[in-house]
């Protein structure tokens, strides 16, 4: 399940909602990752652009990989501005046993960082500045150059 929200994520509500959705599904492990915006480099927050059609197909391909391990993934991400100490990203894996979920959340979040079509901007002094230095070119980039 992929959920997008305008602005920051309501972390307690989402974690509880996902827990309730699966509490009778016989999963032995629920491993969430919550990303929180830190106060650093003088930023007031972060802002995000999301391209939904490709994000959805990327997410579906990971859901298929999870299914092959009898696991499922849930993910929520913000669109627009998110201020300091708020959350813009939550991912969670449910699996029968903990080892699968621990390994899967690591692989999933790493590929999310490298491949998911989301663009990050620093909010600083009233400006929205593309976080170019922290961004990663998607695999296969540059074919038109």
């Amino acid at each position, binding site marked *: 399940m992929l959920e997008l929200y305008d602005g920051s994520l309501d972390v307690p509500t989402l974690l509880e909602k996902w827990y309730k959705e699966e509490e009778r599904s016989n999963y032995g492990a629920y491993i969430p990752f919550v*990303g929180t915006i830190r106060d650093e480099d003088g930023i007031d927050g972060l802002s*995000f*652009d999301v*391209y939904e*059609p*490709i994000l959805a*197909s990327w997410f579906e391909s990971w859901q298929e990989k999870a299914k092959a391990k009898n696991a499922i993934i849930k993910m929520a*991400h913000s669109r627009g501005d998110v201020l300091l100490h708020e959350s*813009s*990203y939550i991912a969670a894996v449910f699996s029968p046993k903990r080892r699968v979920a621990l390994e899967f959340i690591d692989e999933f*979040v790493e590929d*999310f*960082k*490298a*491949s*998911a*079509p*989301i*663009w*990050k*901007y620093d909010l600083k002094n009233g400006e929205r500045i*593309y*976080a*170019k230095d*922290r*961004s*990663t*070119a*998607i*695999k*296969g*980039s*540059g*074919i*038109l*150059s």
Partner: protein
Amino acid sequence: MVKVEFLGPIQKDALELNISNLNELATILQEDKELQEWLQNSAVAVNDTLVASRDFALKDGDRVALLPPVCGG
């Protein structure tokens, strides 16, 4: 016509072009000096599927998107 969109931080309006493959698109976009760096680091999707080569035929109504470097989370 093929619609070409520039996603995320690329500050450029969408184009409608009469082209039949990605090679022709590359030739057109390479003439735009402001796009040089983006062409080097952007991925390309046709109808929301990423493509790996510019030897790719386009037909009327196709949508091409340029995806610059990403950073979610």
